């Protein structure tokens, strides 16, 4: 029993056409790359499906996406309570890719320690075969107009994450500093460390398919999978 496959995607609300308005076409390339990665995850039939992302209220739950808190009245069909945004983006991506209702959402605190995150990941993997959709971005401080303004530490931080995701280096992910990540508004730190814990010892292959910073936030898309699983590369942009 272990982690069978994982996909890392951005938690950017602008991926959602209903929220993007007239810019829906301009960001269509990124949206397609993200959806391609999620489809690849769903192509793996084994393992329970778990979405991981930051949330103020932590723990496993069910629910659906709901954009009314962002100003658009639209809601997922599944019913249940509205999920926190990162998990809601995951829910929406799974809905768009035609995933069934059999899935769980895990909120992790942005303040949780790397040790706690890694431990949580290990426990999840030990409990049974698992597929993870990991929702989280790199820093949000990559330009003057970025949500967190420009921070010179952001680029090296993101570069380290990129390398780790590209080669499946869980140790490097677990070494990310929570304090720095918080200052750089990198929403992916805790979820990536849960992934790192779950992947420990699984011998996963890895591939980074997207690393872009179009609006000051670093968007990363990566796939980790068990090499015995037939490789299905994500579609090119």
């Amino acid at each position: 029993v272990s982690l069978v496959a994982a996909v890392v995607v951005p938690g950017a609300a602008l991926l959602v056409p209903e929220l993007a308005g007239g810019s829906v076409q301009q960001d269509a390339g990124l949206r397609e790359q993200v959806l391609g990665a999620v489809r690849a995850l769903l192509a793996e039939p084994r393992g329970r499906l778990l979405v991981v992302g930051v949330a103020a209220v932590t723990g496993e739950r069910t629910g659906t996406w709901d954009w009314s808190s962002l100003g658009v009245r639209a809601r997922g069909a599944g019913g249940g309570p509205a999920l926190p945004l990162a998990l809601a983006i995951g829910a929406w991506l799974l809905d768009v890719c035609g995933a069934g209702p059999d899935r769980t959402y895990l909120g992790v605190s942005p303040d949780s320690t790397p040790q706690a995150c890694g431990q949580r990941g290990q426990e999840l993997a030990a409990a049974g075969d698992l597929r993870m959709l990991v929702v989280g971005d790199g820093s949000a401080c990559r330009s003057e107009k970025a949500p967190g303004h420009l921070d010179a530490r952001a680029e090296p931080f993101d570069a380290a994450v990129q390398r780790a995701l590209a080669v499946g280096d869980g140790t490097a992910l677990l070494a990310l500093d929570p304090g720095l990540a918080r200052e750089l508004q990198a929403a992916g730190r805790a979820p990536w460390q849960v992934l790192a814990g779950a992947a420990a010892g699984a011998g996963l292959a890895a591939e980074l398919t997207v690393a872009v910073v179009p609006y000051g936030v670093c968007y990363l898309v990566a796939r980790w999978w068990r090499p015995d699983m037939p490789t299905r590369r994500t579609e090119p942009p």
Partner: protein
Amino acid sequence: VRAPPPATRSVRAVGQDGVGTGALRLGGASFGPDQGVVMGIVNRTPDSFFDRGRTYALGAALDRVDQVVEEGAGIVDIGGVKAAPGDEVTAQEEADRVVDLVELVRERHPDVVISVDTYRASVGELVCRAGADLLNDAWGGWEPALAEVAARHDVGLVCTHAGGLAPRTRPHRVQYDDVVAHVVTTVVGLAERAVALGVRRDAVLIDPGHDFGKNSRHSLEVTRRLDELVATGWPVLVALSRKDFLGEALDLGTDDRLEGTLAATAVSAYLGARVFRAHDVAATVRTVRTVAAITGRADLALGRRGLA
């Protein structure tokens, strides 16, 4: 002078018979109920109040058409006779000014809706043959045969309230018990008459006729209560651009009425007007689109702030 009472007609409720709830279809174009449309003014006149002959020459008028289309007008409104009193313009002279222009615009801009601002049935007949899609009867059905021309050529018709005034005359001490009630009854009557004569229901607009047969308070009240016109279900056109009632609100001349025009445009858009006749097309397009975004009739053109 009290405006003569219009023939009493029942006012249709919103949505009855689908009036006003559907698309406006003019020429090859279809404008949805939530899609504000700007009608760009093109005057082939030597003496209109705001442009004062700038686009009188054929070449200048064509350039003006290109400009308003470029700026986002879905309709061009070609006029050959200034609205205010002035030099006599015969039907022949009016036709000489507008018919050729309509033909040229039809060739140059196959998709734009061509409206002609005329009260004369004879001129209407000629411009329809030349390719016009809409007759803007700004003098409120002065020549009843104009609606018959629209029906015969399957073009649209703007039904306007001018308070019963003869074309090219100014209101003098006009009074209304209730100006909005008078406007509603008049324009709905004209619209229903047009449909009865065979004008397509989805090609009929109503226009309260700001400044026409009205003092400035009348026009301001019509603006304030425009929702009552919208509630008739007929698509509402407003012609506000640079008009005297806006000038009198601030004591400003025509050159300084842009802000007033856009303010009145915003209020009208908010209350549900669908077509906006304008000199300042680009500014009017932006105003109407912003109001549509505020009311939620239109989505953002760009949705990234706070969502990256």
